[in-house]
Structure formats: structure tokens, C-alpha cells
């Protein structure tokens, strides 16, 4: 018997960003095949990202379930996706002339990048355990490869392998947790889980409890929350710098999106159970991230530890399980994104310009030598340190306000104390730029120091290349502008937060 066949009802408008990204992956990958088109990959990627961003903005204000409820398109998802898309665009710019791109092949490299963005876009929308897991893997697997793309450098490979092992361990843990939650609630759907748990009550249900713990570990891992943070500094340092920048911002944003959606939607009824635990994790991250960053001489590593601490701050927004908390979280993620963009752009420039790689010596004397690079990095550092007139300050203010309102004043104090410690290393970078004489740079140095065979060729003009300076300046300007006129960003965050509650 032939039943009436109904074509699946697909809401193409809502899926359009995801579709655009998917198509773009195919197209960009194809350029790798056709020799003459090789050089177009970055441009195509940028176009694809721009299109996606356009589509996302077009969908702004939508609140709709997609693919039978597997995905949810709302302002939170759109906001996070936009961050991911933006960071990918930054990564593309920073990747221009990056040795890793040449090694991996431009088409492949960019396709992988887009693949990761696709995973993030999906993750931001995921409201089903299956889609959550698939999205996380879609996000991670390309990153494993991207980390290892600088094949000539042992560190890149090491980073890739470490990330893969620990990442897979994290995924496995997450999966096992999701399985338990499914078992405990009988549903893979977030709403279903909430309903399922809500019926029984969680008390004494080890299945759900262990499930929550496992899932929390998996997500905390992705967001570099201590004590699941240890991959972060190593991978950040080993990966090609544009990828590090991308990971630092986009992965964190996407993972936090699903973290929030999972805990504030699926597990909201158990908030009083997980709140203290997550608060402790946040505090631990703040402490470990900040003290770990002290005395680091690799800028990327330093930013990695700083990212752990910042993740701790951001987690505070989740801990309070309130709308204000989510607002603060989104706001901080955006601010954090801009601050990191500026920093990584400068690190990339100096990496190519000097023999010091990402060592802090690379930025010594930058203030006198390259003010256009020094300013973005300075603003970024001051912003990360939460000094006023930067978006970082407003972000902290937002978080602290949410925390105090949610009766987590002690965590707010932790943020304050952590910020104090963080000054020691952020300002060390600033001091290196402005208060130290310039190190030996490109021209004279290599002969003396003796470049290792792994070292990349030095481009003495890298610090003047517009594709590096402009992103840095733009990001820094955004940090300052949102520090002085934060209201637009506040509203942006409020929209995102409103979609959950």
C-alpha cells in the first residue's frame, strides 16, 4: 500500500546558514582539486562566511525548532554562530601566508575550518543529545587536523595528537554521560529530559546524577574549565597561531552555548544540585588559569592559561542559572572574542616578523617600533585584565552583577581576586611592549641565533601587512568602543538571554 508520501517539511530559511556552510565546504574543497583555483580558497571562504553571517542576521529574532526539534534557532544560537563565523573570518585573514596553510593545502585547510564552523553553528542550535554530540564532533574533528597542519613542526603534531587523545576522551566521557541521561530520562530531547527528570525528581537517581557529572565533564573539557583544562596550554601553543586564535574564541563560545542550553534548559530543575559544583569548578579555573599564566614566556601559552581563567569567569554566568547570567555570559563571550582577536593578530604578525616566535621577547619594544601593533595588543591585554574603558570591564561588571544577584557573591570576589593576579601577566606583556628596549628583530638576528630547521622564513614586513594590522586594529577598536558605549552589545546579549527564559 502506498501511503501518501509527504516530503519532509523542511524550514529552509532557518537552516540556511547551516546549508550555506555545508555548500561552502564542498566548494572550497573542490578548489583544492582544481589547480588554477587554489588561490581562491581564502576568498571563497570569506565569501561563504559573509553569506552565513548575512543569513544569520536575517534570521535574527527567529525562535523556531528545526529538524524535528533537533535544532533550535533562536537569538542565542544566532549570537554564538555569529561569533564563530566572525572568528573564522579572522582566522582566514590571519592564515594568509601562514606556512601551515601551504603544508596542508589551502583548499583543505579552509574547508576544515569551515567544517569546524559548521559544527559550531550546529552546536549553538543543538537541543537534542544526538545533535549535540554530532555537532561537538563536527566541531572537534577538523580542529584535531588543523592543529596538526603545520607538519614540519613537531609541536604542531604533538598538539594535534594530544588534542585528539584528550579530546576523544572528553567526547567519550560526554557520550557516556549523555547515554546515562538518556537512560535516566527516557528522552534525547532537552525538553524531554527536563520533563523526564522533572517527573521523577533527581534525588537518589544515580543514573541521572552520574550522567550530569559526565556531561558536565565533557562540556567543561571543551570550554577549558579546570581541572579538565590541561590540554589547553599545550594545544594552544602547538597549533598554528591562527588556529589557536580560532579555537580560543569560537570553540569556547560554541561550547558555552550548548553548556548553557543544556544546563539552563534540560537540567534547569536540578539547578540547585549542579550550581555549587559548577561554581567550584569556575573558582578552580580562575585560580589555576591565573596562577598558571604567571611566568609563562610563550604568548600563546599565556593566552591559553588566560583562556582557562576567562572560562572560569564566563562559567559564572552559567552558574547563577538566570537570564542575567546568560546575558552576561554572551556579553563576555563577545568581548572576549574581540580581545583575543586583537592579541592573536599581533602574535601572528610578530611570529612572522621576528625570530622569537611567540615568545614574549617578540613583542619587546613594540611600542616604539610598531605602534599600530602595540596598541591593539595593549588594549587587548588591558581588556582581558578588566580595566575600565574596555569591553572587558563592562563584561566583568555584567558578570559580577549577575553573580551578586544570584547570591554568588563569593564567586564575584573570586573573579576580583583572579583579576588582580591576572594583572601580573597581562601587564608583563604590556611592559614588554612599552617599557623594554626592542629585541633584535628580523634583519640582523637569524645569523646570530641560528634558526632551527623548523623555523619559518621571516617576513620583516609582516608587521605592516594590512591583513594583519587591520583585523587587530578593528578588534581593538571594538574593545574600546564597546567599553565606552556598551549599550548595543548589552541589548544584543539581552536578546540572546531572553531566548532561553
Amino acid at each position, binding site marked *: 500500500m502506498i501511503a501518501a508520501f509527504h516530503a519532509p517539511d523542511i524550514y529552509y530559511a532557518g537552516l540556511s546558514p547551516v546549508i550555506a556552510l555545508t555548500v561552502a565546504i564542498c566548494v572550497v574543497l573542490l578548489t583544492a582539486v582544481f589547480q588554477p583555483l587554489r588561490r581562491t580558497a581564502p576568498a571563497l571562504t570569506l565569501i561563504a562566511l559573509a553569506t552565513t553571517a548575512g543569513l544569520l542576521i536575517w534570521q535574527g529574532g527567529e525562535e523556531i525548532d528545526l529538524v524535528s526539534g533537533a535544532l533550535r534557532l533562536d537569538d542565542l544560537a544566532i549570537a554564538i554562530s555569529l561569533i564563530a563565523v566572525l572568528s573564522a573570518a579572522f582566522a582566514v585573514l590571519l592564515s594568509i601566508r601562514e606556512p601551515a596553510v601551504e603544508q596542508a593545502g589551502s583548499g583543505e585547510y579552509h574547508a576544515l575550518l569551515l567544517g569546524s564552523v559548521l559544527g559550531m553553528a550546529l552546536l549553538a542550535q543543538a537541543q537534542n543529545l544526538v545533535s549535540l554530540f554530532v555537532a561537538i564532533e563536527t566541531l572537534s574533528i577538523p580542529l584535531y587536523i588543523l592543529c596538526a597542519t603545520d607538519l614540519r613542526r613537531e609541536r604542531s603534531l604533538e598538539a594535534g595528537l594530544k588534542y585528539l587523545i584528550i579530546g576523544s576522551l572528553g567526547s567519550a566521557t560526554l557520550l557516556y554521560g549523555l547515554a546515562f541521561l538518556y537512560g535516566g530520562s527516557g528522552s534525547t530531547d532537552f525538553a524531554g529530559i527536563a520533563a523526564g527528570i522533572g517527573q521523577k525528581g533527581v534525588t537518589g537517581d544515580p543514573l541521572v546524577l552520574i550522567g550530569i557529572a559526565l556531561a558536565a565533564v565533557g562540556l567543561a573539557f571543551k570550554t577549558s574549565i579546570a581541572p579538565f583544562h590541561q590540554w589547553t596550554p599545550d594545544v594552544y601553543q602547538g597549533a598554528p597561531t591562527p588556529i589557536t586564535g580560532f579555537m580560543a574564541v569560537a570553540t569556547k563560545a560554541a561550547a558555552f552555548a550548548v553548556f548553557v542550553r543544556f544546563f539552563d534548559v534540560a537540567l534547569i530543575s536540578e539547578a540547585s544540585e549542579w550550581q555549587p559544583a559548577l561554581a567550584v569548578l569556575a573558582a578552580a579555573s580562575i585560580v589555576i588559569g591565573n596562577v598558571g599564566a604567571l611566568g609563562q614566556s610563550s604568548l600563546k601559552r599565556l593566552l591559553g592559561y588566560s583562556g582557562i581563567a576567562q572560562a572560569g569567569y564566563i562559567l559564572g554566568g552559567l552558574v547563577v542559572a538566570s537570564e542575567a547570567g546568560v546575558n552576561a555570559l554572551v556579553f563576555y563571550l563577545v568581548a572576549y572574542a574581540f580581545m583575543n582577536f586583537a592579541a592573536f593578530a599581533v602574535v601572528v604578525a610578530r611570529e612572522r616578523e621576528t625570530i622569537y616566535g611567540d615568545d614574549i621577547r617578540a613583542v619587546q619594544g613594540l611600542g616604539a617600533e610598531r605602534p599600530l601593533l602595540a596598541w591593539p595588543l595593549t588594549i587587548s591585554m588591558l581588556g582581558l585584565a578588566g580595566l575600565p574603558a574596555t569591553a572587558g570591564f*563592562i563584561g566583568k*561588571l555584567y558578570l559580577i552583577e549577575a553573580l551578586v544577584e544570584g547570591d554568588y557573591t563569593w564567586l564575584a570576589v573570586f573573579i576580583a581576586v583572579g583579576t588582580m593576579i591576572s594583572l601580573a601577566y597581562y601587564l608583563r606583556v604590556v611592559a614588554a611592549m*612599552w617599557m623594554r628596549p626592542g629585541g633584535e628583530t628580523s634583519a640582523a638576528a637569524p645569523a646570530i641565533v641560528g634558526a632551527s630547521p623548523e623555523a619559518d622564513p621571516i617576513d620583516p614586513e609582516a608587521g605592516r601587512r594590512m591583513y594583519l594590522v587591520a583585523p587587530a586594529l578593528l578588534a581593538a577598536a571594538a574593545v574600546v568602543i564597546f567599553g565606552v558605549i*556598551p*549599550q548595543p552589545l*548589552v541589548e544584543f546579549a539581552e536578546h540572546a538571554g531572553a531566548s532561553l527564559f
Partner: protein
Amino acid sequence: MTSSLLWTPLLFGLIGLALPKRLTGWWATAGTAVTLGLAIALLAGFDSGAAGLQDTVDAEWIPGLGVDYSLGIDGLNVFLLLLTAVLWMAGTAFAAFREQERPHLFFLMLLLGETATLGAFLAQDLLLFVLFFDLMLVPFYFLFGVWGSDRPDGTTASAATLKMIVYTLIGSLLMLVAAIATAIIAADGGQISFSIAELSQHPIAEGSQRWIFWFFAAAFLVKMPAFLLHGWMPDAYRAAPLPALAIFSGVLAKVGAYGFLRVVLPLFPDATVEFQEVVLVIALASILYGSVMAFTQTNVRLIAGYSSVAQLGFITAGIFALSADGADGAVLQMVNHGLVVAPLFVIVAILAERSGTEDLREMGGMAMKAPVLAALFLIVTLATLAMPGSANFIGEFYILNGLFDSKIVFAIVAISGVAMSAYYALRLYQRTMHNRRPDGLESREIGLRDRIVLVPLVLCIVGLALYPQLILKRIDASVQQSVTAATGAPEPKSTVASTPPSNGGNTAISIAVPNFAGDTP
């Protein structure tokens, strides 16, 4: 008007970036001059009898967070604004007369600092206050770190500056948390507002006041700096470039004391009364310790630095006498001390230029060919030691009188600091200007460029010495309001009115145990 006062320096600073190097200094000086003009205009239009805010600006800034862009002027800050404008102009001019490395950045930072400081004084929104309070540090971090000097013993300017920043931010970040907590507790679930005026209408519960009080106090006491929290001071002062240090010591330290009057007393009255004596003990310790240290130091900057610790101790003691005269004296003394310490540092700079050292033991006899410098220095010295006849004396007199009325024992201990100040201030003068001149030390009169900076400041000191009422008259109403917020009703000033002549004996008894009689809640 108020807003333009706030933003003029920064505006000039930004425009200055586009100018050629040799012009930036003068452009910046012009900016500070315009700011000073605006400040004077504000003072001219100031209604001296009124206690409330004048020339207010009120606009929403981040409505989502309840933060407003709200500025205002009253007796508490009007002269501090003027002091800021005056000292900044002097410091900027002093710097403009000299060759600076990277002048663009230098003067931008200097002017950013002025805007931030003015902002801290003007802000009537608690969060805006905290924001500007923290922002002040940023330019001074650069000024001290980039243009500072490393010490031969290996302490680099950047390390010293870092210490300063971390130290001072310890307080201010906690203050941020405390400020937010105050507003949220006060809102009690309603719309959050950070307006200081509104918050002071409904003080929060006493239990919360306690910890919030200390968070604020920590910020302010570090900034001053007070005893035990001054660890950043010696290194930072030795590293700092002198024009910036003159401003820093002259103005920024006062923001802390100002914060007590503006924020702590009105917002946390119960805690203020409860911890009055604890803060007084800190203030006294600052006075004594600062004086003793200034006694034995040989580095000229540190003598000035430790003397500031002692002076700020006096100011704190005046505020926490919790009486109108004490607080009047404290505000007057803030202005006085600013006016005194800034030229002191300028003079130290001039002396160091001539002698090539900042060690007192290697100086001497410089008055010889520089009678004008000697005379100016002498006036500054006398004002520093609060010689009767100077406005500083009136300031200390008011402070101590207030303290004497409320806490007599504290007053008597505090006053010993006056004697010590006479010694260390005069010692500084004598060891540099008088006695024999060591070989190779230059005695040279100050040039026109230094006179242009110094003479107006000294004239301010002299002018105030003749007529301190200029300030007292205008601050009194606002200060009383702030103090009354903490203590409740204004206290009767004279016991005579209430004591019949025949009851002399009773007065004696009340004096015999005065300190404890005043403590009953």
C-alpha cells in the same frame, strides 16, 4: 559645562596625536589650561551656601545594568576639581618645558589621566565612580612604567609600577564587587540604581554594610596610601617620572580620601560609626609611621612620599572624627596637601637635575646661587609642616579640633605627628639648600620655565594661607551633609550653650572621661 570639563583633556589629548612632536607638549598644556578655565568658571558659578549637587548631568549609560552617566558638583568636590586642573596644568607645563621621549604617548596619557581623575571626582553614580577610579591607574601605569627610571639595585620601573597597579587594584576590584552588591541589596529585587544620592536615601542593612565598608575602605586606604598598605609606594615613587609623580601624589591620593566622604559615610553610616575607631587607629598609625619613616629616609622622594602618608593619615583622621569641623578640615587639607606636595616634587625634580642624585646626604648648599628657588622651597616647606599661618595649619587645626571633640586620645597622639613633621620637612629643606655644598654639585638659579610652573603654585599656597575661608565657606554645607548622613543629627558645637555657668564641675567630669563618653551608640 560639567561634561565639557570632564572630556576636554581627553579631547585635547587625542587631537594632540595628530600634531608634530614638538607641539604636543604645548598643545597638552593648552588643553589643561582650558580645563582649568572651565573649572574656574564652575567655581565662579558655584552657589556656596547650598549643600546639594549643582550643575548636574544625568543620562542613561548602560540602562541594562542600571548604570547612569551622572555627574555633579558640590562642596565636596568643587575644590578638588580645581586642584586637579591646577596641578595638571603645572605638571603638564613642567613636562612640556622638557624634552620627553615619545611625547605623543606621554601627553595623551597625562591628559587621559586628567579626564579619569576629574571623572572620579565628578561621578555621582557609584559605578561610574568605580570605573573612573580604576581608569586613573591606566595612564599612570604607563607614565610611571615607560618614562620611569630603573634603580641601580635592579628594581625596574615596570616592576615597581606593576606592584603599584596590583596593589591598588586589589582594593578597587573588591570595591567593584562591593559597589554592585550595594546597589543590588538596596534595590531589593527592584530596578537597580547606582545613583549615590538615591542609595544614600536608603542605607542597606547593617550586616551587609560591614563587609562592603571594608571593601571600599581597602580601595581608598591603598590609594592614599595608609599604613601597612603602602608597600607599593616606595618603589613606585622612586621609579616615577617627576611631573607625573607630582600630579599623582598631589591629586590621586586625594581620591581615596574623597571616596570616604562621597561614598562611605553617606552609604554605610552604621558601619562607619562601628568601625570609626579602627579606621582612626589606621590613620594614627599612618601619621606616626609616615613621620618616623620620613625622619630617617635619605631619598628625597621618599621623604615627600612618607610625609604624604602622614598627611593622608591626618585627612583620614579628620574624616573619621565624624564631626563637621574634622571633615571640613580634611577637605581643606586635601586641597592644601595637593598644592604643597606637587611643587615639592617639582622642586625635588629641579634639585635632582642639579645634583644628579636624589640622596639627601649628597646634597647641600644649593640656596647659594638660587635665592628664588630657596625662597619658593622654603614657603612650600613651611606649608608642608603646617606652619601656623598657612592654610595647612587651618586644615590640621580643624581636623584635630574635630578629633579632639570626639576622640581626645586620638587627637593627642595625632598631634605628635605635627612635631615630627616640623623636623622632617625642615630637614629636607636644610640638607638640600643649606650647609656646605658637596664638590661637583651645581648651585644654579631656576630659569623662567621652572618659575612659570612653581610661582603660581606657591602663590596659590600663599593666597590660601591668607584666606582659607575661600574654601571653607564653600565646602561647609556639603561636608556637613555628608557627615550628618553618618552620625545622624548635627552635634552641638559648643557645650557652653547647654552648660549653665554654675555647672562647671560637671564639665570637668565629662572631660575626665571624654573618650569613652563619646562612644556610647
